[in-house]
């Protein structure tokens, strides 16, 4: 089987493997979804008891102990780790990541933690993709695509939204829209969706009725974009703030998770709307059944943001998609009720219209991924007639929030650590080229006690302009002679026997060591204004690095990235 696959054309091979990834990713999503509803139903029977507020804390402690002690995997919402692996490790992910986050997330959400099941399924899908790629011994480039396939299948299956899956994988995970990516990802996304439809039926999560939209509503949705932009900024800032504070205050991870869970449980006592993934509450809003009152909605928005920050910031695995949808729909609701208060004479479109737009706006802003927001909302609500408003809110909100939080919630951490490396960028190439590849070793080494005459005979025999000087006994690097510096002397016959190399050489040459990265080498070239610099390790000369060689390699790196 493996031999047969490896003999196929690369595109065909990727498509077949992508379908396999799609099946596994889809099954993973459905499994989590099913177990979530079973456990939640069971726990709901206990809702009437007084100790219910302790549930999130217990779930959190269990999830944290499971993830950190039993499985020893990374916590948090995890998507940044997937992106990091694509940036730096050629898409390599651990096999245990394919199920660890599912279990941990099940414990978190079913017990009432405010998070969604999407990030864990993305991690598990990506990890399945990565490990299948490794099983077929595919190379980094294909493995990265299959990681994207896994993520796409997971999102597509959990939301029953194939196009949103494609958009998410390309926009948030891979960061590159190229044909070679799109085809396998589209296949995997479709397969994932089909699997989910086959196992649990073709249900549109938030089916809504048709509603009349007037041009005025379309104009009003621009105002909503401002609200969602602020909402997303608030969510991201509070999430970061709580995350930093939690790490600073409590060092034990399971204690931290437990405390976070406890606070969430306490908030849940007053406002049960904030608990869990919150899809039920969205359904209520879409059906326009949420109890009236402006103040209550505002309060729920703030409480949900805090609860989400506490859940995810305290280090548990859970997705941001679901909380974003909940907060977004509440913001939409809030905005609609404000509109009705301010201009009661106008007949505004229903609450569900604005709730939809609010979700799109918030997703687009928080992830800086407008396409994902647009397609996700269109697909999970089945309402293509609001597409224009959804597009408007998504792009305007993403643009506005860009001023406050320029990077996606998934990327900001990596960017802060300088570890987000996107394909086809200068950084990518500089990171990939290493010094050993650029090293020129065909240099003529000279010694300090040589005369100018000897040196001239060396110059005659070589085509190089830089001559490293080594101590003839210890072999240590002493300095360099650049032909330009001695050009005026080498034609002077009278000096041939009286001048020694050590009198000509430049001793304070800045040198490169093997650990230096290319961008610092470029800085060094700028500083010294030289064309070649010596690479010196443990005071031994290893070779030269020249600007011209770097250009040559740099160009080739760019050329091999082109897809034909």
């Amino acid at each position, binding site marked *: 089987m493996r031999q047969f696959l*490896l003999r196929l054309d690369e595109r065909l091979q990727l498509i077949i493997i992508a379908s396999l990834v799609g099946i596994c990713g889809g099954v993973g999503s459905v499994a989590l979804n099913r177990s979530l509803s079973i456990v939640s139903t069971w726990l709901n029977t206990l809702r009437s008891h007084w100790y219910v507020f302790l549930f999130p804390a217990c779930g959190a402690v269990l999830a944290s102990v499971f993830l950190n002690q039993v499985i020893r995997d990374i916590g948090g919402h995890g998507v940044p780790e997937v992106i990091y692996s694509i940036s730096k490790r*050629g898409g390599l992910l651990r096999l245990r990541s394919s199920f660890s986050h599912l279990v941990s997330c099940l414990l978190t959400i079913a017990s009432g933690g405010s998070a969604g099941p999407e990030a864990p399924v993305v991690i598990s899908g990506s990890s399945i993709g990565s490990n299948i790629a490794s099983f077929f*011994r*595919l*190379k*980094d*480039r*294909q*493995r990265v695509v299959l990681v994207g396939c896994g993520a796409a299948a997971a999102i597509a299956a959990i939301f029953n939204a194939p196009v949103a899956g494609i958009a998410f994988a390309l926009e948030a995970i891979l960061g590159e829209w190229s044909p070679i990516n799109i085809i396998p990802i589209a296949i995997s996304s479709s397969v994932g969706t089909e699997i989910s439809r086959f196992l649990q039926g073709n249900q549109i999560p938030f089916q809504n009725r048709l509603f009349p939209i007037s041009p005025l509503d379309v104009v009003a949705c621009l105002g909503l974009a401002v609200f969602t932009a602020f909402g997303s900024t608030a969510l991201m800032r509070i999430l970061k703030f709580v995350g930093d504070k939690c790490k600073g205050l409590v060092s034990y991870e399971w204690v931290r998770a437990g405390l976070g869970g406890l606070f969430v449980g306490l908030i849940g006592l007053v406002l049960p709307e904030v608990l869990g993934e919150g899809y039920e509450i969205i359904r209520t809003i879409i059906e326009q059944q949420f109890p009236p009152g402006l103040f209550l909605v505002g309060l729920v928005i703030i409480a949900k943001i805090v609860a989400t920050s506490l859940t995810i910031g305290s280090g548990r695995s859970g997705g941001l998609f679901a909380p974003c949808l909940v907060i977004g729909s509440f913001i939409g609701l809030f905005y609609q009720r404000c509109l009705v208060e301010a201009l009661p004479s106008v007949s505004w479109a229903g609450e569900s219209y604005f709730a939809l737009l609010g979700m799109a706006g918030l997703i687009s802003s928080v992830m800086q991924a407008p396409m994902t927001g647009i397609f996700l909302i269109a697909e999970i609500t089945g309402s293509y007639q609001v597409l224009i408003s959804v597009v408007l809110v998504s792009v305007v909100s993403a643009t506005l929030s860009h001023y406050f939080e320029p990077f996606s919630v998934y990327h900001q951490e990596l960017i802060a650590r300088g570890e987000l490396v996107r394909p086809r960028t200068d950084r990518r190439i500089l990171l*990939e*080229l*290493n010094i*050993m*590849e650029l*090293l020129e070793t065909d240099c003529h080494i000279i010694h300090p006690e040589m005369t100018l005459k000897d040196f001239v005979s060396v110059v*005659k*025999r070589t085509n190089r302009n830089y001559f490293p000087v080594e101590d003839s006994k210890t072999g240590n690097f002493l300095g360099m002679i650049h032909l330009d510096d001695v050009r005026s002397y080498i034609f002077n016959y009278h000096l041939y026997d009286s001048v020694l190399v050590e009198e000509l050489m430049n001793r304070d040459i800045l040198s490169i060591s093997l650990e230096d990265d290319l961008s610092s080498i470029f800085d060094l070239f700028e500083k010294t204004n030289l064309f070649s610099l010596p690479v010196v390790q443990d005071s031994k000369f290893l070779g030269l690095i020249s600007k011209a060689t770097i250009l040559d*390699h740099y160009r*080739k790196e760019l*050329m*091999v*990235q*082109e897809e*034909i």
Partner: protein
Amino acid sequence: MKLTINDAGKLLGLPEVTIQRWIQQGKIPVQENGEGFFFVKKELEKWAYSHNIFLHRDIQKANSKGLFSKYCLLDAMKRGGVFFHVRGDNVKNILRETVSLSSLPPDADKDLLLDMLLQRERLASTGIGSGVAIPHPRYPMENLAGEAIVTTCFLEGAIDFNAIDGIPVFVLFLMLSPATDTHLKFLSRLSFCLRKDSFMYLLKNCTEKKIFLQKVEEIEGSFNG
């Protein structure tokens, strides 16, 4: 044809480390068998062509001809021929005679070559002094099939060549090279010979091809540079 990583590196002009990284990243088409990775030459060439990557095999061919062997000047002189008692009363006639004597490839245009030589003489005389001239065209001759030729002509009587030292010229070395670097290489070897007093003495008194070539062989053998 199978290529190893090392061969592929040479063909693409890249270090082995880079090729290995490209394999790892899946940027280059590679095959795998029990022993490790290998490249299929045709596939690799197609890939390089489609990515505009220059292949280094053509350079290798040119270098492998042994153009700059130890006795390259001697060989070129043997190819070009050595002639005595060449007649002519002025530069143009002498050059015409020299061109007709030299063993050029059959498709060479002798009239064009003569024009080119005269053009070069008008620019500056190729009489380099001490009665020696090295006529050559201004541009390399590409139809020489990679092999330079040096035709030696001892003149019947010395003629005025507008040489830099004004001394009439009695010997001509017609140098035809396929490329500039070849020309310079031959020029430096020839001038190395001309600096030797024994060589100059021989030139003035030489009557036999065999003795002349023996001397060149002797001096070129001692040339390093």
